[in-house]
């Protein structure tokens, strides 16, 4: 069982705490000149996505989480599972809807994603930061109204709905920021 001591703590280190894999977001060393040292650590729970704060007595050891981030290609979904493949080994992984945590709404077949594996099982999937998707449905734009900065909902080929400027038309391809779920530009 691999462990990390607090003096090895740094951003990105993966720990197993309260049964969940967590990634260090921020590590603060606190020590009175003549007293006990502590590490105040912000961690992202990789299962729930929530950020928690924990305090460690400096010098303590914590079990490492067997977490691996790998680039995989999205293949298809069968309604229950989303299937991904590592391009090097052709190894395939089936990911549940829960682990996708909403990222499926951005994914087109053959897109490359970051899949996080915990003990060899898919834990989460991160869609590419920016994707280009075609608009399959939206109301016609109103000419001359572009200066107003108004928006309208547009349904994309993956089923996601984003707000787009009024001048954007059905059938066009747009660039979307998946972290914010926001329209960026026409392609």
């Amino acid at each position, binding site marked *: 069982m691999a462990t990390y001591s607090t*003096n090895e703590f740094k951003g990105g280190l993966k720990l197993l705490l309260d049964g969940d894999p967590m990634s260090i977001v921020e*590590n*603060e*060393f*606190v*020590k*009175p*000149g*003549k*007293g*006990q*040292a*502590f590490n*105040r650590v912000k961690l992202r729970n990789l299962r729930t996505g929530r950020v928690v704060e*924990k*305090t*460690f*007595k*400096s*010098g*303590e050891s*914590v079990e490492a989480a067997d977490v691996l981030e790998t680039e995989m290609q999205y293949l298809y979904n069968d309604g229950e599972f989303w299937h991904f493949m590592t391009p090097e080994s052709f190894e395939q992984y089936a990911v549940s809807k829960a682990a996708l945590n909403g990222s499926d709404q951005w994914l087109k077949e053959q897109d490359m994603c970051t899949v996080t594996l915990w003990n060899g099982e898919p834990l989460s999937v991160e869609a590419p930061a920016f994707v280009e998707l075609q608009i399959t449905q939206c109301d016609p734009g109103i000419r001359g109204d572009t200066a107003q900065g108004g928006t309208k909902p547009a349904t994309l080929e993956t089923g996601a709905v984003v707000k787009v400027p009024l001048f954007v038309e059905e059938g066009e391809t747009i660039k979307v920021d998946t972290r914010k779920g926001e329209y960026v530009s026409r392609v």
Partner: protein
Amino acid sequence: MSDWRPRAAGSRVARARLLAELRGFFARRGVLEVETPILGRGTVLDPAMESWHAQAGDGAGGREGGWLQTSPEYPMKRLLADGSGDIYQIARVFRGGESGARHNPEFSLLEWYRLGFDDRTLADEVVTLLQEVAAADPAWHAPAPEPRVVAYPDLLDEALGVDALHDDAARLQAVAAQRGLTVHGELDRDAWLDALMSLCVVPGFPPGRITILHDYPENQAILARRSRERPGCAARFEVYWGDLELANGYFELTDPVEFRRRREQDRARRRARGQPEPAADPFLEGALEAGLPDCAGVALGVDRLLMRLLGEDDIRRVIDFPWGRA
């Protein structure tokens, strides 16, 4: 290596200015600048302080070793016992395992000793020094004019309802839990006091204002004598600027018997916790036997003072070559 570049260009001139101001402050008061070794035969046994061990070939096929000083306190006290009178030093010191936004394992420590002073009068002088130095450059931040002066037990009582002299570890742990603070790892009573003070109370210190914390619990006396006014407490003080600890001072312990008792207690604590045991300094004891004059001493972190003067939040912004790039 691509990391050759210094990192703190913005603070370089200010550091030189600060060092000159500090030297001017002591010159005006007739306090003598001294130098003592940073590499010694032994070091402190304080369990809260890890000393670096240095080794070299001895030129005859073997190896010899020494300890890098965590502060110049011991040799400076030997000078005092020899009749040096008031002295100060700006020393490079080394502390293992201390690295972060407010710690660098190697740093500059201003340490000075004043004959005939006690903890209160020396704390006042620290405040005067901070105010005079801050006024030297109009671009520097200055602390609010009036410091807050509060006894350690009173502060913990006011802030958390804790009796710092009597509450046991379980009670302190419960108070911490009420504040949403749980700690991974076993803490004894003193460590819980440190946790409550450093993590619950100090972060709320008024920004921009100096706080003098005095009358520490006797268990945290280190080398301060017992407080005359407050039983169970030590004549030890700390100076904070906002929530940043700048200085630690004592009305100095002069009793060699009590010194030995505390050193052996530190040794026992180290053994109980499985900490490494460095070679103990072999010389200070003799100086205490010969007689240390009544005096007060304080050590102040120069890099942290520079942080506050320049309004920086990270010590690596005021050190050109912080740990990792040194």
